[in-house]
């Protein structure tokens, strides 16, 4: 049984404690609370570095100190506080850093509302548990044999065929009917690879539709996107050893993952605002009358500063873009403003929650819209890598990881 230590403030009073425990149970984990004394709480300024007005946050920090001093107490940590609490946001981030710096225990940080459900937490918990349970598998650096990966995403379905550490076939289709899209993408990859389906030794599946697709095709590995994408990203970028930061701006959610030696150490997943997704860029491309594949190149010629964006929102932000066009702004400036808007929102809301260490790797279909990694580079002041086959990241990660199961 994996023990996840919960360091939190407000979950019991938000009515979501049951949801946290339900999500943990679903992934075969148990929530634990490290024992601390009153003295530990009173001495938190000395031992952690700060004491705040809210006692439950002091308690959470005291528990973090205890875990760092006794790493055997927990296999993983979740740090959870109320959304919109400034005091808690500071402490949540500091607890995450504290554990990250002083132990090898993976940490998940999350801010909740009363609407947070077990389903929202499930992928995050699954990733947390995977990093604990399958450390050996995640340490795998080479793909062996003939394997396939399918990434059943919310917007697109991707598939790759890999043989002896090389991608030999790819398939990409918009997601309509989940199973059919998976089969179409898979067939396309098989066709390109020039192999027969029966020759494939194992298939790994990831993405939103992973359970449905995985069951349907009898996949050997069904895995959430956090660990799979981390693995795929560092593999394709040749950054398997040491630190890395993976940013994946998807169709329905975004992931920012802090990776060490190919294994996620801390991560966040955001997924409420369409203004911080690929959808916003699609709408912009449509409004500008260019194909989405051309939007990035157009953006590289523009300057976001020439467009007044009043909102990150997909509705009001788009309105700002339309207004700018009617006032004579150049399409390239509007294209870059859209890229900057998405990048800035991810930067503000998610990258503050993870350790940003180089190399910074952007993956997923949106990373091919050149203006987006450029905007991220300007915000982070570091070079952003977009590896070859970045759009197939989940499928590559799944094909790589599943090959590790062939030897067992």
């Amino acid at each position, binding site marked *: 049984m994996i*023990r996840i230590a919960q360091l939190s403030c407000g979950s019991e009073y938000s009515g979501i404690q049951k949801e946290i425990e339900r999500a943990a149970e679903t992934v075969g984990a148990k*929530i*634990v*609370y*490290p*024992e*601390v004394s*009153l003295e530990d709480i009173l001495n938190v300024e000395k031992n952690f570095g700060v004491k705040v007005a809210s006692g439950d946050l002091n*308690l959470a920090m005291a528990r973090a100190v205890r875990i760092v001093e006794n790493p055997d107490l927990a296999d993983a940590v979740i740090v959870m506080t109320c959304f919109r609490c400034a005091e808690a946001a500071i402490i949540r981030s500091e607890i995450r850093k504290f554990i990250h710096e002083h132990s090898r225990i993976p940490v998940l940080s999350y801010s909740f509302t009363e609407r947070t459900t077990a389903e929202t937490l499930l992928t995050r918990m699954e990733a947390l548990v995977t990093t604990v349970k399958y450390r050996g598998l995640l340490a795998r650096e080479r793909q062996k044999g003939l394997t396939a990966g399918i990434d059943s995403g919310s917007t697109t379905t991707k598939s790759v065929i890999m043989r002896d550490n090389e991608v030999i076939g790819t398939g990409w289709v918009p997601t309509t009917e989940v199973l059919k899209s998976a089969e179409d993408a898979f067939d396309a990859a098989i066709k390109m690879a020039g192999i027969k389906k029966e020759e494939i030794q194992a298939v790994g599946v990831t993405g939103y539709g992973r359970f449905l697709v995985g069951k349907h095709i009898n996949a050997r590995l069904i895995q959430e996107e956090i660990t799979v994408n981390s693995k795929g990203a560092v593999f394709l970028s040749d950054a398997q050893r040491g630190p890395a930061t993976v940013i994946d701006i998807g169709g329905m959610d975004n992931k920012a993952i802090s990776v060490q030696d190919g294994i996620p150490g801390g991560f966040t997943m955001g997924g409420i605002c369409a203004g911080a997704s690929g959808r916003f860029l699609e709408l912009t491309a449509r409004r500008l009358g260019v194909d989405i594949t051309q939007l990035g190149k157009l953006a590289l010629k523009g300057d976001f500063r020439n467009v007044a964006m009043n909102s990150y929102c997909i509705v009001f932000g788009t309105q700002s873009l339309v207004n700018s066009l009617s006032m004579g702004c150049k399409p390239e400036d509007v294209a870059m403003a859209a890229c900057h808007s998405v990048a800035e929102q991810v930067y503000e809301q998610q990258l503050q929650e993870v350790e940003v260490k180089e190399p910074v790797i952007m993956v997923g279909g949106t990373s091919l819209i050149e203006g987006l990694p450029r905007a991220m580079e300007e915000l982070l002041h570091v070079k952003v890598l977009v590896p070859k086959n970045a759009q197939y990241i989940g499928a590559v990660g799944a094909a790589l990881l599943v090959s590790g199961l062939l030897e067992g």
Partner: protein
Amino acid sequence: MKVTKYVITSSESDILPSDIAMKIYGSKYDVNVKETCFGVMVNGEEEVVDALVKDIRALDPAGIFIKDRGFPPGDPRRCRGHRGGGARPGFYMIESESKMLPMISRALASGGEVTAIPEKKKPLLPSRLEEIIKEDLS
């Protein structure tokens, strides 16, 4: 309606939690009792518990304190044995206040007489501080 109350003894009281438990076991009251490190928990019908705690208080009026508790004793929803260890957050408050009980007991036992607390010293006036600095540096 069933209620639960903590009966908490000051660490300086001659009455021990076990004395209280024994008294309840030997009494006419139909209640559940659970001993804890700082006192006992009593669970039963409200009027029964109220009458009982009145009797218990009489054992040491200044040294025994009563607190309401939301959960019945050992409720699995709150019991640390069922919930991944670690004290429930509210425990630390009881522990903090328990440390003050001897003082409060003595104050209650002393009745009405109150000695005046000396006023806090006022901070030094800036002008006087300036003088001291000048004297010190000269």
